């Protein structure tokens, strides 16, 4: 309890987190002692080239994977002690995901897709419907609610996916290369959606990307390389997608 008091501001605490795969000589160290603190309401970009360990870190943050060493606390709660079942339940209530591929279920309408996490969280049907419509509204895709993913553009589908992520009101939104499968213009619309969402709801957002242009839209960049944090600083010339859509900067 004392720890929770002291770190009231801090949503995520990683201390010397390591993750290795395999055994003996074939051991691969994906993470080598990552220490990181993310405050509630921050918008952070986790950046690094492929193989830097950012996907592993994202899997650990999202409770898909367990660290082999170190401590992970979320909102003051020790995540490494949870059972797989508890993890799934915790994930369902507190953490939301936006993936690189547009991971909408193809045979469900936009609305049904958005409602899905809430139905897994056993929320009442009318609350579910209400939150889903609100989230679709927030992302500007309310008019698409009865369409199937195949009837939307990539950008629209990704915004539905973001709506799905935020509808249950999570503490943390984890986005893994959210613009990776989109062209630049749709990508910018999606980044704009993230920024507006951040401003309006104050939800904590972690963007995992290898794209510096995407990273510039966050308020803070944590750079990873070879399983370690090599840089952690606020973004000084932050790009605001809504106001100055820039065709320059970054390579994808």
């Amino acid at each position, binding site marked *: 309890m004392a720890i929770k008091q002291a770190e009231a501001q801090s949503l995520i605490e990683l201390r010397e987190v390591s993750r290795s795969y395999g055994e003996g000589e074939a051991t691969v160290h994906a993470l080598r002692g990552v220490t990181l603190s993310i405050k509630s309401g921050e918008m952070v970009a986790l950046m690094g080239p492929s193989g830097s360990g950012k996907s592993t870190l994202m899997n650990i943050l999202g409770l*898909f994977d367990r660290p082999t060493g170190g401590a992970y606390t979320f909102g003051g709660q020790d995540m490494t002690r949870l059972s*797989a079942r508890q993890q*799934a*339940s915790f994930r369902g*209530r507190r953490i939301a995901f936006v*993936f690189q591929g547009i991971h909408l279920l193809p*045979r469900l309408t936009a609305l049904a897709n958005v409602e*899905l996490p809430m139905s897994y969280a056993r929320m009442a049907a009318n609350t579910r419907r209400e939150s889903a419509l609100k989230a679709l509204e927030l992302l500007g895709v309310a008019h698409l609610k009865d369409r199937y993913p195949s009837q939307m553009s990539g950008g629209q589908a990704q915004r539905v996916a973001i709506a799905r992520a935020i509808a249950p009101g999570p503490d943390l939104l984890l986005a893994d290369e959210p613009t990776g499968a989109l062209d630049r213009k749709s990508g910018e619309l999606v980044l704009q959606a993230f920024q507006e969402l951040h401003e309006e709801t104050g939800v904590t957002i972690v963007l995992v990307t290898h794209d510096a242009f995407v990273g510039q839209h966050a308020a803070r960049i944590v750079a990873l390389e070879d399983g370690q944090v090599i840089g952690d600083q606020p973004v000084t010339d932050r790009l605001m997608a809504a106001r100055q859509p820039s065709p320059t900067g970054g390579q994808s």
Partner: protein
Amino acid sequence: MNTFAIAWDSIWHHRTRSFLTALGIIIGVFAVVTLTSLGGGVQKYVNQKFAGIGANLITVVPALPHTNAKGGKGGFGGGRHGGAGPSFSSIPSTLTAGDVNALNNSHKSVLQSAAGVITVPSLLSQPHKSPIGASIMGVSSPFFGMQNLKIQSGTLKGTGVVLGYHVAHELFPHKSALNQTVVVGTKDFTVTGVLKSAQGAPGSDPNNTAYLPLNAALSVSGQTTVSEIILAASSPQNVPSAVTAARNILLHRHPSHNFKIITSQEILSTVTNTTKVITEFLAGIAGISLLVGGIGIMNIMLVTVSERFREIGIRKALGARDGDILVQFLTESVLLALIGGFVGTILSGLATHFVGKAVGIPANLTVGSVLTAVLFSIGVGAVFGVLPAMRAARLMPAEALRTE
């Protein structure tokens, strides 16, 4: 979107595949339900037949002394013992008309009446005409009452021949058979009675039989013994004491115990047990096709799980628990099996109805067989769906999502 709707959606999306998978179950359930229903029909048929001749009948058949060897081959094929109807004994009979008289004159109240029965191996014809294919039996007059055979015209106690309904009409299509002359073997008899149409005991066909008085039949055929003796107990409840009484009387006359006493309940239970065993045996064999159908379901569910890796990963990332995924896939396999069971049951209902009609047995779907089919389909779907569903549930979401 509930579990059932998801499962149905997935099944409907792969209609052809789902149908072919369900076909295994359709065939399996069809086979099992049809066989059990037809078996039930045969049993009902036998029961009805026995109900028609009364439960108070006792049959005495010849037997080898001191053994329980076969008393004779039953007229209705499946029976292990001699039937209540005519019996072609493989054992030389020692039962005589004297035994019949002794039983009739026993003055035991539980023994209502006794009738000797023999089969006359002669042909029946009109004088100077070619014979017809009717069987001829010699019976004591109480026989008619025991077998529930009613007179249409004439008398049952005459000295002439009593003709079955069809026999009378075949011999004398355009006039009354009564008082006409017929030839049995070489001897002339006057028709003294014509029976009403009747079903008779299992294995007997009274409509196509001509009945001679026992003594006349003995002299016509040159036999001295009767094939069997049928006894009527005063009531179905008195059958056991009637058996005891009859045994005592007969033991006195046949110290070597070369006879066997069978009650119609025994015959009925033998027949019932036999058809039951045969039905269950056949249903068991048919059940193998259900097993094969179940394996088909397991196979296709495994394919479905690997096809839907991504979907499973997404669902898990969205907070689905292992149990949610397990239930989802289990619902799908059970639903698939249930659809198969449903279609199979309907087809079986049709087949049973038509086969029953064609064969002439009152076979229809029973609540039991339908219930069995439904439970079996659910069981097959659940048992064979568990492995694929567990595989789906155990997938790690990250691993599942990486499979693009």
